[in-house]
């Protein structure tokens, strides 16, 4: 682990030049994989994330099927070489927890009741990690689900907020995450319904409230980027035949 910087914010600028309410640069590529039903490659700052979706498809073994709805499965995995010290392949306790809360982040927007006995499988591979992989993974998963054409109430958008040098800031980078005072990953629908929320560190009640409001601003920005990526990808394909062919549900707001 590198040394703790003396200051994280100097003249309103963070170590990488961002303002406190600014996201890292984001690059989205839809459908990079052809075997999966939907996929998305996402660069979020120095994070590199691949997400793929399969389903709804038959769930094996059969005794795990739910007669009333699709079972959502979410697998967050870090490549062995995605961090400085090699990770042993396979599940860790950390990845099991992140997979669980990742799954919980999506069930609300998936019409699981439409697909009893099936599985909707969401796979996240972290290829390069630099703080914020769980929220970046949720953003990529959201786009991969849309890319797979799986009916959703709307997209899920995620970002982390935190506290460094006593200030609430958006989207912690590595140093801010390692040495900062708090980290709050959040995922929301476009309408601000929170489907994922964790926190560690130390915040007063009012700081936390401020953090939540900043998270809403961040998620709104993410949502615009996601929507833009889907429109670029799909408007071209459908535009000639039908202006309305972009499935609104996919890029719309679950809360409207």
């Amino acid at each position, binding site marked *: 682990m590198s040394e703790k910087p003396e200051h994280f914010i100097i003249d309103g600028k963070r170590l990488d030049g961002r303002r406190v309410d600014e996201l890292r640069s984001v690059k989205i590529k839809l459908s990079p994989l052809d075997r999966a039903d939907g996929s998305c490659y996402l660069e979020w700052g120095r994070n590199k994330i691949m997400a793929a979706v399969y389903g709804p498809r038959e769930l094996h073994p059969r005794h795990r099927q739910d007669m009333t709805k699709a079972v959502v499965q979410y697998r967050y995995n870090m490549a062995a070489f995605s961090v400085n010290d090699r990770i042993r392949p396979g599940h860790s306790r950390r990845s099991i927890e992140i997979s669980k809360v990742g799954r919980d982040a999506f069930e609300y927007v998936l019409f699981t009741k439409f697909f009893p006995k099936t599985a909707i499988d969401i796979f996240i591979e972290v290829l390069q990690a630099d703080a914020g992989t769980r929220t970046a993974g949720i953003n990529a998963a959201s786009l991969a689900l849309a890319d797979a054409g799986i009916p959703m109430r709307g997209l899920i958008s995620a970002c982390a907020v935190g506290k460094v040098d006593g200030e609430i800031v958006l989207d912690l980078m590595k140093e801010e995450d390692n040495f900062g005072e708090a980290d709050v990953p959040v995922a929301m629908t476009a309408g*601000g319904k929170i489907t994922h*929320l964790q926190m560690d560190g130390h*915040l007063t009640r009012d700081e936390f409230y401020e953090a939540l409001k900043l998270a809403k601003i961040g998620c709104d920005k993410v949502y615009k980027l996601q929507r833009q990526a889907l429109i670029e990808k799909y408007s071209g394909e459908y535009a000639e035949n039908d202006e309305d062919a972009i499935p609104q549900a996919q890029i719309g707001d679950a809360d409207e």
Partner: protein
Amino acid sequence: MSDDVMAEIHRDYLFNLVLKGERDDGRAFDEFRDISIETGVAGMAEGSALVTLGDTQILVGIKIQPGEPFPDTPDVGVIITNAELIPMASPEYEAGPPREGAIEIARVVDRGIRESKAIDLEKLCMIEGEKVWIIFIDIHVLNNGGNIIDAASIGSIAALLSTTLPAERYGLGEDSPLPVRDIPVAVTAIEFGGELLLDPSLEEGKLAGTVYTVITNSDGGISGMQKSGIEPLTIDQVMRVVDMAGTAAVKIREKFLEV
């Protein structure tokens, strides 16, 4: 009548109660079930606590041994938290290695203790980079009566407060109390029928769409949170739970004075 139909009827019953502002066991929405804490119950452990929270019974044992620090934190002690949802505790639990539910519980409790800086980990370093105390927090759920996470959190900090550093056994000086300097308390709410209920019973927990835990410290600050479950929460709901949790934690922290 089938089990499903029974469950449906029971759900409707509880739902209608909540609409009237009531709970099945007569509690207010922000009211905890009875809590009792007994420490020193596991005599081979360096510290232990048996917590009952309503019907829930959890035994937490602390074992401590010397060992190597993590390479990236060479100057502090190590905390390893493990939760076992043993099949004794519930007909739904199965034998085998911890699954995601048990792992989540252990990790949330662990974060609460770690992030609140409740244990002075610097004091657990003996030789930087070489030898530190390793603290094992083992959470043994004996009876699942609902809201395991809060009971596990209470049990863990209670057990740590009762813990002795076993320096003599390892020829490393005199025994001393574990340096504990805060009492983080987890308070869990569920959302049900639009209402927020603290300390869900087993029945309530099964019906909950969302389980949301807030861990607060003695200074009122927040050191950990975890939302799980599939229903979303609004920012307003989140803040209401934060406020309820802060108030409830103060009362729970008073319990520790009685131990």
